[in-house]
């Protein structure tokens, strides 16, 4: 007797959880991308040794440790250092930090793929560095980096469930609350799994379509 009726009773809470999941995913991914882009620019533009070392240590540390442990350090450990964040801001900051080195790597590879000749030509024509970055480097870089950007953004959707473990009230958290009250453990977990399967498949498809359209757009412009 699968008790799917429960979803009617707990529907509002689950929808709230779903919106928190989507919110955390979008905001977290956008912030991680932004920080990743800055890291890529610093890595490319600042050659001072200490800066490169710090950058390297940051990337190694974040890529070498589990997201869950990073969240525990940020949420339970950081108050000792005076950084006291609520669950949601801690979760968003966690996603930002966790995603940033991966995005930085994608951007770095993309920027390296911009033909040097194009940049030199623009410089010879007297364009300002900021203009070169905005008009030439970013569009050309995006064409080659888009598939990886889309791919990693999709991976981040799945990481949002880990935020439930620091009490961010996203879909997994709300489902667990429901399970504790209704004892419908197996059904709820199954529905949650199916939901994520459909959700990730859907955004993968949308992502691939957007990727194609954006590529056409960028190629037309450049």
């Amino acid at each position, binding site marked *: 007797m699968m008790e799917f009726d429960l979803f009617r009773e707990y529907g509002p809470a689950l929808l709230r959880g779903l919106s928190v999941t989507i919110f955390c995913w979008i905001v977290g991914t956008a912030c991680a991308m932004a920080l990743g882009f800055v890291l890529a620019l610093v890595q490319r533009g600042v050659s001072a040794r200490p800066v490169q070392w710090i950058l390297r240590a940051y990337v*190694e*540390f974040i*890529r*070498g*440790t*589990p*997201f*869950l*442990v*990073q969240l*525990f*350090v940020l949420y*339970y*450990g*950081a108050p*000792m*250092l005076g950084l006291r964040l609520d669950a949601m801001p801690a979760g968003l900051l966690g996603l930002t930090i966790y995603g940033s080195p991966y995005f930085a790597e994608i951007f770095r590879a993309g920027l390296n793929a911009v033909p040097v000749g194009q940049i030199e030509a623009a410089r010879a024509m007297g364009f300002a560095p900021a203009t070169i970055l905005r008009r030439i480097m970013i569009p050309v870089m995006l064409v080659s980096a888009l598939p990886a950007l889309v791919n990693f953004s999709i991976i981040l959707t*799945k*990481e949002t*469930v*880990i935020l439930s473990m620091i009490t961010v009230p996203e879909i*997994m958290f709300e489902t667990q609350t429901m399970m504790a009250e209704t004892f419908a*453990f*197996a059904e709820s*977990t*199954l529905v*949650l*799994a199916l939901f*994520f*399967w*459909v*959700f*990730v*498949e859907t955004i*993968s498809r949308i992502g691939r379509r957007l990727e194609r359209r954006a590529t056409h757009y960028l190629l037309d412009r450049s």
Partner: protein
Amino acid sequence: MFSFQTIIDNLPVLAASARYTLLISGAGCFLGLIFGALICVAAVSRASAARAFAGVYVSFFRGVPLLIQLLLAFYLLPLVGVNVPALAAAIFTVGLCAAAYISEILRGALNAIPRGQAEAAMAVGLAPRDIWTRILLPQALKISMPALVNELILLVKASSLVTVVGIVEITRMSQAIASATYRPLEIYLTAAFLYLAINLVIAALGRNLERRLAW
């Protein structure tokens, strides 16, 4: 104040729990390699049913978060008659999930092997099974070694999630110690550095292996 004494006192217990982290990620990676090779063979097979199965498999295990896969294995599988101890459930789930990623890695590597090789093998009368096990998969393995090492590192990190099915590995042990000592910062940082150390060693071993394979 930051207490190094807490770290020194608890490091032995925490490091001992790393054996479960290593066991689950190592055994999970090994299973993932076997299942992944099978899924990869299915994915490039001429039989459309095999291709469809591989497609659904990869889509499911890559679409559903591992945390939820673990709970499914724990809460749901017993209802259909599969009731295995937590450790076996954890290793199998991690392995099945890894297989989805590894099959894609191997598939990418297969594309890099010249088509002529399989055709020549067929021409001299080698059975399809031998073509796979003697020619294609060994080369695919070698080509994809960097990606596989990276996958193992991902699994070491992913193994932190098996806390939910009751395996006391590094993360679960650090939660217990943090709650007993009230020193979350020191303990979770120590846990993080343990993971980092494991992964740096794996990365170094991987580079070593790649150099040898390149000969």
